[in-house]
């Protein structure tokens, strides 16, 4: 007996596109971090990677209906990013003393050449950590079902 049911390819294709966009986003996120660390924020390559990341994420978000597994993975990712942001920004006041010491050490280090590490750097790092948490949780959920 061959089971018969109407093929509804729209959801499957949309989900396939969605996973592709998230995979591209993950790769571009890693590329953005890598180029930022090696070439600096002002590098054109870093800028291109960041713009590509935004476009790929935009396409993933606006790309139409996703299947329930894609939604499940997305929710895992956003929950991880939200928790990361909460931890970082709730912990910020407690970490202020540590950051002061860190900034002082950075300012006085020979590599810093007097450059000052500001709280913008902390916010910048927090943003990247939240995004890293999103991509890590999404891919973990996708490949391992999100189970510990």
């Amino acid at each position, binding site marked *: *007996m*061959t*089971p018969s*049911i109407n*093929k*509804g*390819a*729209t*959801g*499957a294709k949309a*989900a*396939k596109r*969605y*996973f592709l966009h998230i995979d591209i986003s993950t790769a571009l996120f890693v590329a953005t971090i890598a180029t930022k660390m090696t070439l600096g924020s002002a590098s054109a390559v870093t800028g291109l990677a960041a713009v590509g990341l935004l476009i790929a994420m935009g396409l993933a978000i606006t790309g139409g209906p996703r*299947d*329930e*597994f*894609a939604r*499940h993975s997305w929710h895992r990712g956003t929950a991880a990013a939200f928790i990361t942001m909460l931890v970082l920004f709730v912990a910020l006041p407690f970490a202020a003393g540590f950051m002061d010491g860190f900034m002082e050490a950075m300012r006085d280090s020979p590599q810093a050449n007097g450059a000052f590490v500001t709280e913008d750097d902390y916010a910048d790092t927090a943003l990247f950590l939240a995004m890293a948490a999103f991509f890590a949780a999404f891919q973990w959920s*996708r490949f*391992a*079902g*999100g*189970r510990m």
Partner: protein
Amino acid sequence: MKNTLKVLRAMNNWSQADLAERLDVSRQAVNAIETGKYDPSLPLAFKIARLFGQNIEEIFDDECE
């Protein structure tokens, strides 16, 4: 949750992509369900059961975890 989805799919000589298309979900979703990494929603479980002409409890076993 254990299930017999992989066996049922093989009996029909379908690939994961074929089954995904029939269920209107991604191939990744079929793979995750087959390997027990993801439990489908009730509507999707019903859809799977209808597709193979079986009851949900014949396909999914919730006592094996």
